């Protein structure tokens, strides 16, 4: 077998079998399962106290029934019970846990309903809000009947104004689509961000480990350092794809089996109802390109340090670049069409995240995406050629310092004048 493939497979298999990889994968799968089943989990915990009971002290005797009707339309989970004893006893019953809350209804001087809400704590705002909405509607009905308004007049009064957003650009996304895209892009941006940081780190550590354990010298006497570097980058890349595929498959099947809660639950807000295929394809493309860009950078930075402890220090500037790109992308989620986002999307170190953001959120012309990808690919090639030369010299260098001056020294080592 070709030595390139031997290194690639060796890197892939040893990492795949390593404890840390297995543990992080399992942990992430658990998180993915948890997230995709979040609706079920929320329901599970809600089941016990599903119905919230409220004791009603109706001083007038004519407010209870209308309020019950109003509330039935708002939240069926709230159960109202008329309470015949006095206020003190009702408060005791709430304290004892017989009721979740207590509401006292009466009419004020203008003959409009008003109420006092009492509960053990007022942390649960949703119950209060629902009751408030019901009361508000009740009050409106009372007031309207006092003014002798008909139901039809009332409906007209409360009809929401007709106000639509329309984008003039032909392919621009509708507001609804934009919201959906935002959720998906947000999610995929996170994956790109974490994967790039994690796997670039892994490569730098791998190179530094081989160097500090001095096994490097044997390796480079068997196989050219450039071949090694790319075999390693591809091996770890394969590993990252394996992990990604595991996550996506688990996520997909878990979502599919929860399709019901998925359609009108938590996930719908994030736009997972109908995932646009193109966005996923772009995500994979930018994931791979982003990985190659940062992996190449990490490999040559890793080749410059002599001790594992220095790796973090060496790759910090690189990590900051990734973080900066991610931050800008987060900002861009709200305003994807600002010139700042457009400009930064062409800066190759940001392209994988920001250009992806633009593709996912806006309908930008294809040439813009292609230009971004072309700049990115060109940068990867330049970095690979330059990085390979630094790597070749870097792996032979052992010294105390690990600064960027070493890049010059490493290049000098490979020169043959």
């Amino acid at each position, binding site marked *: *077998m070709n*030595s390139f493939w*031997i*290194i690639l497979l*060796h890197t892939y298999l*040893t990492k795949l079998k390593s404890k840390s990889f297995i543990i992080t994968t399992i942990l992430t799968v658990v998180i993915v399962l948890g997230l995709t089943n979040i609706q079920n989990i929320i329901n599970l915990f809600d089941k016990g106290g599903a119905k919230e009971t409220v004791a009603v002290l109706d001083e007038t005797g004519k407010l209870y029934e209308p309020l019950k009707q109003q509330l039935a339309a708002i939240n069926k989970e709230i159960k109202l019970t008329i309470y015949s004893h006095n206020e003190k006893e009702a408060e005791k019953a709430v304290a004892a846990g017989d009721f979740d809350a207590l509401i006292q209804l009466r009419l004020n001087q203008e003959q409009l309903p008003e109420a006092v809400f009492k509960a053990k704590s007022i942390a649960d705002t949703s119950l209060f809000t629902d009751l408030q909405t019901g009361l508000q509607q009740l009050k409106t009905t009372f007031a309207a009947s006092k003014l002798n308004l008909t139901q039809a007049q009332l409906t007209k009064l409360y009809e929401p104004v007709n106000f639509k957003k329309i984008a003039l650009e032909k392919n621009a996304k509708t507001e609804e689509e934009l919201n959906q895209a935002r959720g998906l892009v947000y999610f995929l941006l996170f994956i790109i961000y974490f994967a790039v940081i994690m796997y670039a780190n892994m490569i730098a550590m791998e190179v530094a*480990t*081989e160097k500090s*354990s*001095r*096994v*490097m*010298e*044997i*390796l*480079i*006497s*068997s*196989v*050219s350092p450039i*071949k090694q570097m790319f075999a390693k980058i591809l091996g770890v890349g394969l590993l990252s794809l394996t992990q990604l595929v595991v996550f996506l498959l688990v996520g997909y099947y878990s979502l599919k089996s929860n399709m019901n809660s998925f359609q009108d639950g938590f996930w719908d807000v994030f736009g997972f109802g109908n995932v646009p295929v193109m966005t996923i394809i772009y995500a994979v493309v930018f994931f791979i390109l982003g990985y190659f860009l940062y992996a190449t950078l990490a490999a040559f930075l890793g080749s410059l340090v002599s001790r594992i402890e220095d790796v973090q220090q060496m790759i910090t500037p690189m990590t900051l670049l990734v973080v900066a790109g991610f931050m800008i992308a987060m900002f861009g989620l709200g305003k994807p069409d600002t010139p700042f986002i457009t400009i930064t999307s062409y800066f190759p170190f940001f392209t994988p995240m920001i250009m992806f953001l633009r593709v996912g959120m806006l309908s930008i012309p294809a040439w813009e995406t292609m230009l971004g990808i072309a700049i990115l690919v060109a940068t990867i090639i330049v970095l690979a050629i330059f990085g390979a030369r630094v790597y070749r010299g870097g792996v*032979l260098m*052992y010294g105390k310092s690990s600064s960027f001056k070493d890049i010059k020294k490493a290049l*000098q*080592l*490979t*020169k*043959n*004048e």
Partner: protein
Amino acid sequence: MALELKHVTKRFGQFTAVDDLSLVIPEKEIFGFLGANGAGKTTTFRMILGLLDPSGGEISWEGKPLNYSTSHLVGYLPEERGLYPKLKVRDQIVYLARLRGMTKNEAQQELKFWLDRFRVPEYENKKVEELSKGNQQKIQFIAAVIHKPKLLILDEPFSGLDPVNVEQLKDAVLALKENGTTIVFSSHQMHHVEELCEHLCIMQKGKPVVHGALKEIKRAFGKKNLIIHGDFPLESLKDFPGVVKAKPTMEGILLQIEGESVAEAILQEIVGKGFIRKFALEEPSLNDIFIEKVGASYE
């Protein structure tokens, strides 16, 4: 003409690590490569292995340049030992052997052979970090020779080993030589070089200061050692004509003299002065030659 270096020079910026080095290393022999620290030995090895490109000159093996396509012909034991600490002995030897063009089965068989030879077959499934330094070195040696290289480069193979392990490793090196391997090795311990090498080269600041067959080097050196043990004062001999250096010992004196005739004159001088328990004329040791050639320029 197995390995040939022609006017090889390596510069790092202003610094010249190897300066116009020309060597011929005969086939199926052990060639000793000596020099003080920083004399350019490791740089030369790295150029032979193709890890560094020479700034000038040529290196060839059987008339052809060495590069990665010939890496299965070459074995290398680096000065700084290095193996994957977390990998099992078998896994990493097989991995390194496959990179040198062996198949997995061949590598496993050879590994068994070598582990048996070093009487440590139980190490096959151990992680390298669990082994002692000396045993790690054996594994490192196996990694260098497992693919039966034609050219073997050993950078300080015996440093840090106990005498029993040194003997084991020496036997292994000699056996490889019998099987036709050309071996280049460097060492600071002169007696190893004297024992193993037919030809050698002493480097000094990137230049070869002594180069040739061991016997001829000794003959050309001319000076001899004279050991005298007697129960009368011998210190005055240090001013005797023809004596280069004198060093008093517990039982007498050790003299470095210019030639055999000086020994004769000294014998005549001291006969009758008292009882001479020992009077021995010896060939100079490599150590003497090394110190004279390399040490002189330190002063």
